[in-house]
């Protein structure tokens, strides 16, 4: 076991010290940071030119409008100053509020048409003020005013809990299968290439004179799994840090408050048995990738080694699509027990609450047994495969493995 750990840590350190791993880990953070940064700079540089100034001879009217609307330029108070600012492209436009013969008017001057939101707000503002002025001019009684002020009502009645739950299921499903798929695709290649690059090299002879092939193979697999775990932990920490930032950010906080129950439901769906399926799925595909890497004809074929595993993973991923709304299909039930596919299908059933605890346990037991048997078989073949330097095809190697044990 001691030597297995030596191989594990050597594999782990070699992977995480590489530039490719660093870029892979930091890539999403860099992309998000870059997008946010560019948006922020762009928003700041454009903010002054998107503002609209409000000008009026009536200061109470102007102040009332400014009070009801955000994002307005409050510094410019004259038409002359507004025209100059517009000319220099420091304003999107200016709005002149006035009254003429008891009629409220708003004149917009700008390089482009008024934004729909500001136009609606301006319209509402004018209607409210005009209505008040009309009532006053018409000398209506309080009862008459109340009657005229009556408006029709439109109310939506949505079962919020059910709606959120359905959305949470969809979001959870897509997040989970996409996560499984991306991790499997990425690490299938890494695992296969890690193994294939050593194929037929004499360093393997030195290593097999130092430790057993099974011990070495398990060490390699564990090393790669540690790398995967590192990436998952980094992303979880990154996600947590992002979440903390978002809920403490004044602009994002309302959004998170509004979708609080949805976010909680998604997190719950991800951090349960599904996480076990994610990890075990990664294990079985990594073992298969390692085998795939070991049966290539030579180290130069390392890049091709992962192809069969990638294809299998893609098949599992795409097979789930037609059954998202038909979870009671027999096919879904069967596939949720079949190793390599259960990592996609059983989480789908768990998220939708159509798999009992017994069914989940049985599926996990089958998956664990398959991993054990598979690792044992490959471990027994590993030395022969890795020391082999002939140019047999993958199928010939595989058949040879079943026929001969030397």
């Amino acid at each position: 076991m001691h030597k297995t750990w030596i191989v594990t840590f050597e594999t782990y350190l070699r992977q995480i010290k590489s530039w490719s791993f660093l870029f892979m880990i930091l890539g999403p953070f860099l992309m998000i940071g870059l997008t946010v940064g560019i948006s922020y700079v762009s928003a700041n540089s454009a903010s002054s030119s998107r503002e609209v100034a409000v000008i009026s001879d009536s200061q109470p009217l102007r102040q009332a409008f400014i009070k009801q609307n955000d994002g307005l330029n409050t510094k410019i108070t004259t038409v002359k100053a507004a025209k100059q600012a517009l000319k220099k492209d420091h304003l999107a436009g200016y709005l002149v509020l006035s009254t003429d013969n008891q009629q409220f008017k708003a004149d917009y001057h700008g390089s482009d048409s008024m934004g729909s939101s500001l136009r609606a707000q301006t319209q509402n503002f004018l209607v409210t003020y005009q209505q008040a002025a009309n009532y006053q001019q018409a000398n209506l009684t309080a009862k008459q005013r109340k009657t005229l002020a009556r408006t029709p009502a439109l109310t939506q009645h949505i079962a919020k809990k059910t709606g959120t739950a359905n959305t949470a299921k969809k979001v959870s499903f897509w997040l989970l299968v996409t996560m499984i798929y991306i991790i499997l695709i990425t690490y299938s290649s890494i695992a296969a290439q890690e193994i294939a690059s050593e194929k037929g090299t004499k360093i393997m002879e030195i290593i097999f004179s130092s430790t057993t092939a099974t011990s070495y193979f398990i060490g390699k697999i564990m090393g790669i799994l540690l790398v995967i775990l590192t990436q998952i932990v980094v992303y979880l920490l990154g996600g947590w840090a992002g979440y903390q930032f978002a809920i403490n950010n004044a602009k994002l906080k309302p959004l998170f408050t509004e979708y609080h129950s949805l976010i909680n439901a998604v997190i719950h769906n991800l951090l349960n048995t599904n996480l076990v399926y994610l990890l075990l799925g990664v294990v079985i595909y990594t073992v298969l990738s390692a085998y795939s890497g070991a049966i290539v004809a030579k180290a130069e074929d390392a890049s091709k080694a992962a192809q069969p595993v990638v294809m299998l993973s893609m098949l599992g991923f795409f097979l789930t699509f037609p059954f998202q709304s038909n979870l009671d299909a027999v096919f879904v039930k069967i596939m949720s027990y079949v190793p390599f596919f259960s990592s996609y299908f059983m989480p789908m059933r768990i998220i939708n609450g159509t798999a009992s605890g017994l069914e989940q346990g049985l599926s996990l037991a089958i998956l664990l047994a398959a991993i054990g048997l598979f690792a044992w078989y490959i471990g027994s073949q590993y030395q022969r495969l890795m020391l082999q330097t002939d140019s047999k095809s993958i199928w010939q190697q595989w058949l040879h493995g079943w026929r001969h044990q030397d």
Partner: protein
Amino acid sequence: MLSIQHISKHFGTVHALNDVSFDVPDGQILGLIGQNGAGKSTTFHSILNFITYEGTITWQGHSLSANDFDTIGYLPEERSLMPKLTIEQQVVYLARLKGQPAKETRAHIDEWLQRFAVKGTRKSRIKDLSKGNQQKVQLICTLIHHPKLLILDEPFSGLDPVNADLLKQAVLTARDEGAAIIFSSHDMEHVTALCDQLVMLRKGDVVLHGTLAEVRNQFGKTELYVTTDWTPDRLQALPGVVAVTVRQPRQYLLQLNDPAAGPAIFEALTEGHYIEEFSQQPPTLDEIFRLKVGEDHA
């Protein structure tokens, strides 16, 4: 002691090894010689359990198992290290797999680099070293944990005479520390200089086995070294002489068809007078090797 008893190995219809037997006692060196494809590497792979075989191989009286890995030092025929690692990382990793703690290995790396005159420091990357220096680092990886069984497949291949002497010295040191050593080589000079016994394989069969003296004496004293004023033609005409080779002006090597022809030739050459050199010896290992290879081609 490493004991190999009646091992055979077939690859399909090819007999790679056929009833091979020999022992390598502790503190002794055995040279395994033979042409390419004779079965030398297959023998090593059998010892290391890389392949299955018929027969018995024991180390210190028991079958070689994973528990014995730490006592083995193995140098494969082709050199191969991890190019991105530094010398220290590479040596420490392989030594740890041999059960030697990293701390102990690090403490001795500089000493080993100095002993093998490696041009580079412990922080130098393997890929930046010359081929010869990479080979020396690989030798260090093989020896640094003081193995009790040393298996060297063509260890002198690619080494210049100076570095070959450094390796010879390291092998002799390991022998003096009590290691059982088996190595293959095409260079009979190294085998002659190092081996306590040798085994020659030909197409998987043992064709020669014994100490150097035993092997040479099997062929009789058919080599006659003389220094004389006689001409080659005159020497060739002597009874029992089958070939004459000029070593230096006036110095010849006569091949005899019968060792018993020596005294008569001595009489003829001296004719009662002084002779500078007259030495009758068995053939050298190199000549025996060529002879045995020649039998195969005949």
